[in-house]
């Protein structure tokens, strides 16, 4: 019968459409990865490397889609993670604890990003003018301080130090500004103390007019300063694609930390940051932040720092991270795959 034939054709057409849609629906997993500054955070450099050497991240565009997104600081990422605008967030200890206690997010520590305080590596510096109004830490009272974001690693570390000297948050003025802009603000006298990263240290310290007041290493010793956090439900739902990503990402990190690749690594860094090469000579050497080659975060250091934050009152509530809030299975799976010559 005519009608039956027509109906069968229509049904086949619709099925074909559905299959096509279904096929298209197996799209690569969107992985928006936040980052704050580079070369401290390797994410944007890895993305650039993958563009130049696709064999390093073979699954990018296939099982996952890697998308670095810049944020000014780690606490600003908490709402973005809550809204699922980003899938991987580099957190400071404080930001992670706040994500758990205030944002009620079920997050997991999954990988290391950078550490301070390791012997010989960049300690994290807080800089003032030599002839300025701040001679000792106690002088910070009533002054202006620049920070990348309130609650970030650099910021919360500073507040711990200040509280140890009896200075409360309300005793000084905080201004949020990008790391990159802070040296200019110090030079123009807009603020009295800044957080200095190694890539901006060269020009500023060369003037001889500025000095390091204290370092993050003095505050916390070895600190798991920034680490990757992800939502537990997301990890559970997309484990295979995530293992692909972490394998490729770890391969890229090994590439960057390999001294043989240094020349090209620096070229990539210059291309991404647009900074002059001589300011970036420190990168991937001992003068840089410490990066764990296998992305393993120092969980004990995280807990120690959270406890100290709570003790001095920078954080309102304590969180015990291990074992519930830690999930190192992704990097362990990645390491295994790389070891098998993947």
């Amino acid at each position, binding site marked *: 019968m005519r009608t039956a034939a027509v109906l069968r054709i229509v049904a086949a057409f619709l099925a074909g459409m559905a299959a096509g849609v279904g096929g298209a629906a197996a799209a690569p997993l969107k992985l928006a990865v936040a980052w704050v500054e580079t070369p401290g955070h390797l994410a944007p450099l890895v993305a650039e490397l993958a563009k130049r050497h696709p064999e390093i991240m073979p699954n990018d565009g296939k099982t996952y889609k890697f998308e670095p997104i810049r944020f000014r600081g780690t606490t600003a990422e908490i*709402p*973005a993670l809550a*809204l699922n*605008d980003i899938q991987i967030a580099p957190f400071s200890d404080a930001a992670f604890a706040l994500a758990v206690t205030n944002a009620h997010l079920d997050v997991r520590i999954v990988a290391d990003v950078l550490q301070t305080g390791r012997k010989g590596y960049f300690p994290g510096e807080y800089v003032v003018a030599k002839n300025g109004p701040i001679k000792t830490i106690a002088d910070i009272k009533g002054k202006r301080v620049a920070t990348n974001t309130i609650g970030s690693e650099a910021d919360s570390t500073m507040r711990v130090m200040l509280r140890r000297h009896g200075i409360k948050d309300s005793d000084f003025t905080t201004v949020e*500004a*990008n790391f*990159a*802009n802070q040296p*200019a603000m110090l030079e*123009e006298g807009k603020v009295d103390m800044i957080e200095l990263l190694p890539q901006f240290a060269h020009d500023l310290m060369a003037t001889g007019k500025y000095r390091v007041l204290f370092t993050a290493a003095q505050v916390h010793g070895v600190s798991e300063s920034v680490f990757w956090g992800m939502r537990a439900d997301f990890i559970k739902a997309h484990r295979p694609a995530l293992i692909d990503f972490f394998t490729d990402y770890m391969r890229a990190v090994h590439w960057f930390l390999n001294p043989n690749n240094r020349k090209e690594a620096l070229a990539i860094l210059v291309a991404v940051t647009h900074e002059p090469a001589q300011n970036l000579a420190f990168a991937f050497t001992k003068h840089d932040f410490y990066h764990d080659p296998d992305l393993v975060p120092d969980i004990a250091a995280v807990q120690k720092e959270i406890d100290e934050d709570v003790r001095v009152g920078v954080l309102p509530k304590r969180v015990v991270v291990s074992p519930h809030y830690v999930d190192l299975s992704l990097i362990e799976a990645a390491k295994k795959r790389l070891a098998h010559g993947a």
Partner: protein
Amino acid sequence: MAPEPSRLALGGRTGALLPPRAAARRRPAAPLFALLWRYTPILLLALLWEGATRSGLVSPLVLPALDRVGAAWWGLLASGDLTRNAAISLARAAAGLGLAVLCGTPLGILMAWFRPIRIAFNPLVQALYPMPKSALIPVMVLWLGFGSASKIVLILIGCMLPVTLSAFNGARGTEEVLVWSARSMGASRRRVLWEIVLPSALPEILSGIRTALAFAFVLLVATELIAARAGLGYMIGWLGDGGVYDAMFAVVLTVALLGFAADRAWLLVMRRVLRWRE
């Protein structure tokens, strides 16, 4: 209902900002010359600016030379950065304002027309009227992120009030006689609403949209300065942060002039619509 002071402050519904001096009304001869003469003080300011920076009176760090600002503006236009971000910003403002007009106008008219609706909404309006809408920026960012959604919703909320109020006032001012005569001729309530009340309220509504237009720009720029990833306000922020002051000045002036141009454009629309109505 809370008073609508902005209309008075704006100098009446014709939109003339400052009423012409009673003794000296402008003659219609040589309007172009009159226009140039009117804006000459601004030209003088521009010359003063250039003079101050050239002569070294003011440090170029603090006030970049006007020609450098112009060059920077040109560069931003050529690179496409300016048009791209301007398009994003203007789209946000238009969307938020458009939604506010769509929702606020019927609400205001209905509030004037039906007593229960007025009683229901009046206290909300009274409570929200004096609240600085910029206080909602962190909540919008919390709920809707850094993208366009938070800007559009904030502008919607901020612009609803002037639009609703002016629609309410305009509808309320409809001459009773017109309504009675229409009803006595058998027109339904709905027809009266559409064909008598709405046209009668139109001047007031258009004036309210003018106020809302200014609010939309203010809220747009404020939000983009504080929490955004694209748009003119965001551009001003990262140019200023990066110390590229001549470009920053260029974008600030662009935004300011866009606000001014939008206001003047709306005035033209208002005059057109009201003239056609006669």
